[in-house]
């Protein structure tokens, strides 16, 4: 049994079904990627894992515990963290305040965790007194990661972390994600840049119309001629 898994998830927005028996999972210290065409249900799968959308059937299991019926807040306090695709920082607040807000639920001393974030992203320490809205796209993404890390999560869910950034910044963000993974966390991300994402992923899920079309290690998927033809542009 994996550390975090969604089993045979079925979910819908109103009458429109999005996910059909979709399953994803991730282990500690592992990077799993969900790829697929637009409208495949990638972000929806993530919302179900987070409890932002209730599945009509299927289950979400975290660390051996069934969390299908817990609220988002409860899941976050258990150790899940989420970095949304857009609007993922408090733009009118300083970098430091963003991190403090990330640790809002914690009553203990959060200064060590803030220091850990600064150690991981030294540029944030330099810019700690600047408003997050004034930072570049890549730095903002680091603030977003940092904010999510403040609850000391064991699983991080990232929704298209490289959407709309330049290729150079994309490399930087992927390297940040590998750092997150190497620190022992489970990282599950939805990604549009399928080729690059599968290259660094331990595990990949290809979703099409809400169904698991392919799954395997990142290398296997890249090597699979069918996946290459359909999703990676030959």
């Amino acid at each position, binding site marked *: 049994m994996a550390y975090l898994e969604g089993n045979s998830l079925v979910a819908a927005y109103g009458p429109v079904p999005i996910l059909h028996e979709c399953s994803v999972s991730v282990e500690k210290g592992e990077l799993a990627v969900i790829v697929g065409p637009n409208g495949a249900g990638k972000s929806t799968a993530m919302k179900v894992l987070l409890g932002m959308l209730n599945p009509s059937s299927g289950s979400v299991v975290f660390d051996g515990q069934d969390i299908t019926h817990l609220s*988002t*807040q409860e899941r*976050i*306090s258990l150790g899940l963290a*989420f970095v*949304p695709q857009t*609007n*993922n*920082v*408090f*733009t*009118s*607040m300083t970098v430091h*305040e963003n991190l*403090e*807000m*990330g640790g*809002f*639920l914690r009553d203990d001393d959060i200064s060590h965790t803030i220091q850990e974030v600064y150690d991981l992203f030294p540029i944030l320490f330099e810019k700690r007194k600047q408003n997050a809205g004034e930072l570049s796209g890549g730095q903002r993404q680091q603030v977003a990661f940092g*904010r999510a890390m403040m*609850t000391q999560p064991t699983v991080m869910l990232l929704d298209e972390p490289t959407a709309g950034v330049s290729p150079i910044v994309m490399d930087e963000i992927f390297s940040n994600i590998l750092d997150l993974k190497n620190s022992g966390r489970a990282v599950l991300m939805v990604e549009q840049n399928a080729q690059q994402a599968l290259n660094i992923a331990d595990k990949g899920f290809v979703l099409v119309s809400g169904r698991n079309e392919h799954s395997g290690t990142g290398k296997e998927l890249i090597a699979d001629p069918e996946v290459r033809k359909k999703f990676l542009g030959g």
Partner: protein
Amino acid sequence: MVSESVDILNAFALLTNFIIVPAIAYGSQLALGALAVTLIYSIFRLSNFAQGDSMAFGTVMVILILALFQSDWANANFGAILPPYEFLSFVPTALYALPFAIGFTAIYLLVMDRLVYQHYRRIKAKAINMCMASMGVMFVTGGLVRIINGPERMTFDDGARFLFSVRDFKEFTGLTQGIAIKTSQFLTVTVAILLVAFLFYFLNKTKTGKSMRAYSDNEDLALLSGIDPAKVARTTWLIVAAFTAIAGTLYGLDKGFLPFQYHQLLLPIFASVIVGGIGSPMGAIVGAFVVSFSELLLTYAYKKFLIFLLPGYVPDSLVQLIGVEYKYAISFVILVVVLLIRPTGIFKGKVV
């Protein structure tokens, strides 16, 4: 030559007495009201039309509590607890009633939130619908105020009327024009400075204050961070209640309490908020002074000022740009001009 320089001093004493001092006091009262409006807007995306009448409600609570304080029952039971301290005798009794009035105003606002606004937040209503709902609250609150107090003018200031009077000033300086500072004006400015300092400290330094800013900035991310929207809403209404009751009471001490006038205060308050940039606390304060100074500078009759300044010249008219009865038109013009030219206001608030 000597008399000329004295005349210049007299001219400025005149301006200080009739424009600068009253404008600072009036601006401070507007600023407190504007801060309440801007806070409500930042947190609930609600343009609160009920602000003026809520201020009247807070003031009516003060008046009620004052009546209780002065009743025989209170004197018989608590007369001994509150000995008249000589050095505090300049403070109007209304200030002692204020903490209780803030409590009642808070209860009233929270009940209104529960009865009206919570529903619109739950269904994620459009801003304009919320705004119309607040107009309903405005009428209800205004009606309530008139039921409790009646529509007529009330004065409830006691204590010393002047911190120093025109006569004191004249004796001290030897000028023919005096400057007086009313106790209410002095208290207004002092209390406003303290409250604003508290608000900025609260919003920038405390965890609860920061969580309010976070919620205002990005509601979804605030939820993901575990910030409780119900608690944010409660805290906001509590602060708003304090600002509302205090602003209303200070205005009433300064100018007397008249429900209709409080209702009309809505216009200069909104003008202040928009001029400064809605959602920006600093903007609300600056905007309030822009509005108060414009009102007083444009409605003042400069005849006497010019006589002091230009010896030998006596203007035929009062030299008044706009009659006092049009003072609310000034706020309105400011509002329209700002919305046309710079809708985000001085401090780049949000565009409504």
